[in-house]
């Protein structure tokens, strides 16, 4: 949350002559430090609090059975997933905001999150989820890739607007199907399971989940990370970007496939988690002089910090049943969203 005070204190528009005092700030370094601290806190905290010594022994010696089990089998995969999923959402949000030049774009924009959610709903609806713990993410991934194909079939090959509109249409269609799945759920339990899955959570995720999604997240993020220079040129609009040699069709394809792989995989293992991908890029944007390519890495770090912090918070808050991560990020994220809209209203020409 390092950026909030900075953004709130000014609109990032220094007067003529002065260098923007924020643009040279190395925002990545403090974010990495915060992420490391949060990762340690994440290993310590939960239903059973562990001391740093217990965590150390749990990881590096096999004597203490219980703490070893908690740290290695529960908290470590959960922490790793939180960092990977948060970074994915932050990076993808930054890419899509740069791609659409719309500060309110978020990773679900192109329909892939809804596709992953629908895949998971199918898995629960037809009882496939009972076969294996990784059945839901596998179905989610298939759903995300199917949604990607649908978005591309409708809006591919044009400019950014046609892709975004196609994503909106696919989103609407898939949410209708998800509602239909809930409507026709075979049992109350199945409906409840669908609902709780849709709320998003990192609880009870294992190394199997991590191993399943890592290749997709790494491949997707690698694709997205290479869009930086084209996104910079796109800040001049589509025509000028094309005149500078940017291939908009190829960029659309990379953004869509990268998002489908990375966000599809992330959503298929955690459920829908909102606001991280929207807010993460905004926290770091003023520090890098608003340059889209320089936002990508810090936005990924900010996303990881936000999601890990939110996941730790859900473990600390005791209100009976565990608060779902997606519910928490939505509750905390909405006021930030309000503030963002008000700030944009003030800043925009």
């Amino acid at each position, binding site marked *: 949350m390092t950026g909030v005070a900075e953004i709130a204190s000014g609109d990032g528009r220094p007067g003529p002559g002065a260098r*923007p005092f924020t643009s040279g700030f190395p925002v990545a370094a403090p974010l990495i430090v915060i992420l490391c601290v949060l990762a340690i806190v994440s290993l310590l905290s939960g239903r059973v609090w562990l001391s740093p010594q217990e965590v150390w022994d749990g990881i590096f010696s096999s004597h203490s059975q219980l703490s070893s089990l908690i740290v290695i089998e529960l908290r470590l995969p959960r922490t790793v997933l939180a960092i990977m999923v948060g970074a994915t959402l932050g990076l993808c949000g930054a890419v899509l905001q740069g791609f659409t030049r719309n500060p309110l774009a978020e990773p679900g924009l192109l329909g892939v999150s809804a596709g992953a959610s629908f895949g998971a709903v199918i898995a629960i609806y037809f009882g496939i989820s009972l076969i294996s713990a990784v059945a839901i993410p596998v179905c989610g991934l298939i759903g995300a890739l199917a949604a990607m194909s649908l978005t591309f079939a409708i809006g591919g090959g044009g400019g950014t607007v046609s892709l975004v509109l196609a994503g909106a249409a696919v989103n609407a269609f898939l949410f209708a199907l998800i509602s239909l799945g809930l409507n026709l759920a075979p049992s109350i339990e199945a409906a409840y399971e669908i609902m709780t899955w849709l709320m998003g959570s990192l609880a009870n995720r294992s190394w199997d989940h991590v191993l399943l999604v890592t290749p997709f997240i790494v491949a997707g993020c690698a694709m997205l990370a290479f869009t930086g220079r084209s996104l910079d040129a796109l800040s*001049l609009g589509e025509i000028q970007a094309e005149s500078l040699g940017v291939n908009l069709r190829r960029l659309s394809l990379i953004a869509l496939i990268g998002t489908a792989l990375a966000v599809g995989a992330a959503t298929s293992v955690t459920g829908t988690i909102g606001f991280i991908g929207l807010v993460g890029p905004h926290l770091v944007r003023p520090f890098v002089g608003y340059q889209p390519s320089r936002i990508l890495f810090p936005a990924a770090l900010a996303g990881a910090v936000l999601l890990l912090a939110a996941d730790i918070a859900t473990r600390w808050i005791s209100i009976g049943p565990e608060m779902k991560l997606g519910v928490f990020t939505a509750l905390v994220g909405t006021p930030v969203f309000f503030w963002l809209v008000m700030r944009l209203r003030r800043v925009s020409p």
Partner: protein
Amino acid sequence: MTVLSASNLMMHRGGRPILRDVAFRAQSGEFVAIIGANGAGKSTLLASIAGLIVPDAGTIRLDDADLAGLTRVQIARRRAYLPQNPRCEWPLSVERLVALGLTPVLPAFGGLPAEMQMRVDAMLDEWDLVFHRAQPATTLSGGELARAMLARALVGNPDILIADEPISGLDPRHALDCAGRLSALARGGKLVIASVHDLTLAARYATRICALDHGSVTDDGPPEKILTPELLRSVFEVEACVSGAGARAFVDYLTPSAP
């Protein structure tokens, strides 16, 4: 010496012809002002010869090469293009905005090499933008933004500058300044092709005027030969008075022509 030529250009949009059998040839050292009424096909012609839209028929050649056979980046290194009312969508600093013009020549990885940063600094100086270096481009005035965009277009040292109405929307001082700078670029050996609505400025600064009417080139030649009341009547459907020549040329409109 750079030569940009087009022959038999045809373009249709929505069943309507936009360009009809246009032939065009221009070379280094020329400042070609494209004139014509709204909807005459000026922007389509400029975007076509810039390689940004593919015509339905006809060929465009850059020196001896067919434009269709060159990659986007190869074209981008030779010609700069400025659309009508170019704008910057994020509050990037003016320095960053100008540096974006180097996109086609940047090395595959890493930041801006030192010699390219020197080019950016030189352009900021040349276009009177040093004072605005760190200012967000979204807060520039119209005249300042026009200068910043021209600096952006020229920082990569292209052989050709194609600009769609670079002067419209500027106040008289900035319009004169901008037209003078375009003319100086042509004198410096670049090929400048721009659509211009201010015919007085076109008469004073362009080396050549090319008049488009309903998608066809009706007249093409030096301003003093081309800009006549008869041409303005046929192209713009106005009665106009044309006086003076060279730096004292003056064009004003009197009344719409009788139908």
